[in-house]
């Protein structure tokens, strides 16, 4: 009973400490919150781009006897004026290159698309000396790239169509068939219209697009890649701060030593083993509470899908055992609470980096990945990777066993050192 009393008292003190609550709960949630908002509030996966102001100078004219209904310049222009891009592109016409260039210089527009006269004629003739000129504000990076990609995609598509029709004609001639000249413009027009619609649908109505990309997504996992990335990041932060909480909570024994309350406890009819057990229990419960709060908060605040409850429970229990064990061991080396900050800050950050807590989303060299196997944090983040990846619970058994073994060994070593110190 006295063990519970000591643990309960320590928990009250921890949760009354603004610093402790900040490091246990607020800091990990705050860091993930910053990343979350950096991705535009990624719950729906819709990261908003700033509006792009595009100016279009369309001097293109349809050459005589061209097999098209309208010049290619009109197709390019219409892309930027299309309703489907109206939410992120604001397009306006300019009479000539000089006025568009002035508008870019004055930063009235971010990008100017200059389509020269006779562009369609040169393009259809297969000549390369006529090009669409893209002028951009040098301070911008995304907008010019977007405009260039749009123009390139359109022209690639038209070129592809031209090559396809040319190939069809050549094959017909090779087979002794004479193509009907009247059908060629029809084919080109049909293809150009189809391609423009295809592009629009692919980006804005993927369900109607002729070509779709299918990505295999494991069952039970978030389908949004940003959410999945946030999940791994959140797990990394949770692991890092749970180890911090383990060590910080254990530091209460040093503070009690300095406050004189530990000595006072020793004058009372309480076994020293009970005092230590109460302290260990408080550390364990602190890390449990922190883990549960963070998992629930991250789920509701950032829409992170943690996956199978049993797997989450196993990973959390392993994390708690490992964090408590390391906390007890680390603090057993510290003589006074003033040393605690540097030891915990340096030691846990170094171990966290070696364990891969900050590089969970990045492919690291094999040697670095191997090092993570020697740190408890490495095994804990590995187990969260399994949970978030939707892998079967059986895959968790090895990491769980390693985390538990590491935690128990560290705990026993730390407990022996504490018993020696306070014998």
């Amino acid at each position, binding site marked *: *009973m*006295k063990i519970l*009393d000591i643990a309960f*008292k320590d928990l*009250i*003190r921890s949760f*009354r*400490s603004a610093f402790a609550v900040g490091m246990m709960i607020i800091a990990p949630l705050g860091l993930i919150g910053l990343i979350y908002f950096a991705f535009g509030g990624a719950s729906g996966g819709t990261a908003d781009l700033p509006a792009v102001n595009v100016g279009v100078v369309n001097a293109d004219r349809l050459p005589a006897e061209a097999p098209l209904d309208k010049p290619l310049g009109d197709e390019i222009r219409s892309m930027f004026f299309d309703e489907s891009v109206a939410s992120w592109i604001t397009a306006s016409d300019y009479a000539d290159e000089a006025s568009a260039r002035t508008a870019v210089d004055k930063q009235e527009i971010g990008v100017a698309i200059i389509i020269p006269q006779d562009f369609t004629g040169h393009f259809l003739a297969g000549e390369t000396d006529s090009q669409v000129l893209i002028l951009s504000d040098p301070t911008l990076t995304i907008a010019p790239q977007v405009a260039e990609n749009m123009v390139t995609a359109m022209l690639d598509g038209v070129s592809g169509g031209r090559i396809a029709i040319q190939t069809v004609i050549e094959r017909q001639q090779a087979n002794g068939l004479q193509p009907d000249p009247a059908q060629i413009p029809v084919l080109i027009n049909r293809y150009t219209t189809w391609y423009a619609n295809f592009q629009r649908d692919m980006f804005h109505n993927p369900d109607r697009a002729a070509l779709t990309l299918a990505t295999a997504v494991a069952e039970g996992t978030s389908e949004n890649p940003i959410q999945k990335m946030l999940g791994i990041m959140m797990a990394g932060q949770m692991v890092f701060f749970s180890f911090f909480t383990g060590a910080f909570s254990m530091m209460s024994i040093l503070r009690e030593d300095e*406050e*004189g*309350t530990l*000595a*006072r*406890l*020793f*004058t*009372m*009819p*309480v*076994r020293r083993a009970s005092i230590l057990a109460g302290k260990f229990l408080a550390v364990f419960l602190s890390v449990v509470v922190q883990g549960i709060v963070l998992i629930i908060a991250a789920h509701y605040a950032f829409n992170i899908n943690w996956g199978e409850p049993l797997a989450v429970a196993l990973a959390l229990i392993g994390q708690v055992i490992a964090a408590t064990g390391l906390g007890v061991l680390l603090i057993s080396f510290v003589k006074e609470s003033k040393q605690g900050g540097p030891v915990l800050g340096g030691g846990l950050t170094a171990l966290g980096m070696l364990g891969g807590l900050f590089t969970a989303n990045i492919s690291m060299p094999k040697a670095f990945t191997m090092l993570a196997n020697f740190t408890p944090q490495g095994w804990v983040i590995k187990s969260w990777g399994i949970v978030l990846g939707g892998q079967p619970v059986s895959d968790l058994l090895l990491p769980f066993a390693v985390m538990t073994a590491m935690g128990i060994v560290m705990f026993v070593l730390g407990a022996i050192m504490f018993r020696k110190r306070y014998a």
Partner: protein
Amino acid sequence: MNAIEVKNLKKSFGDLVAVQGVDIAVQKGEILSLLGPNGAGKSTTISMLAGLLSPSDGEASIMGHSVTKEPEAAKASLGVVPQDIALYPDLSARENLVFWGKMYGLRGAALKTRVDQVLDIIGLTERQKDRVGKFSGGMKRRVNIGAALLHEPDVVIMDEPTVGIDPQSRRHILDNVKELNRQGMTVLYTTHYMEEAAELSDHIAIMDQGKVIAYGTHDELIKLVGEQTRIDLTLNAESAMIFDAWHSVAGVSRIDATDGTVTVLVDDSNQVLPALFEAAAQANVRITSVDIQEPNLETVFLHLTGRALRD
């Protein structure tokens, strides 16, 4: 059976012998003061009684329970008031007392009642919900004492409980000690304030350099110095010649000089003082202040050790 029994208690830290063979016996219902300067071995002695330190040798028991062989039973009979404040500053006065009460094994209604009583005893019922960290030094001292009284122990050890507090809180604590003793509690009180030892104690043990150098009632100890009067003199200049001259004055038994003050033990200050002034004049030394003190525990300590208690 004595409430506290200490026999040939010793404690060494490496080569340093902090306590060298202390014998103390405190009867039930008695207040014994351990009086001595800092470093005399008082705190080490009571740390062994409280179970904080293991004796290097000797025996000690509380209410018949050996502190080494039956520590749990001995501690259950004992309340310890540590010299420094030993409380949780982020818990309220009541929360502190409740926690310490639980550590003494109190639960439920008994705990609640006792916490209420102790808050009343230490005069902090009105402030019970305030965090201890916000209290004045004196109020913290009172809670510090209250925590040792929760289980109504047979014996209370108080280690210099009035150090560094205001006179009002000091008075409150001394009155509390007397009241607790009146109710039957045995008190072992350590202090280096002779006035406190004189006011509170049934018996006084004077400690110095790890030993009890004198033991008895206040009056018994005073008699050790034979009713000698202590005269503290401040001189404008010290000279060996004047000390030699004063040693030869009839009625002077001892002369010590520390920090510009010369302390002289004499049989009768009325007879000796004119001779001291005359000798000073002849040595061309001017006496700038004189303080005459009737025999007290300070005089006893000086008589026994050659040093002032405050040194």
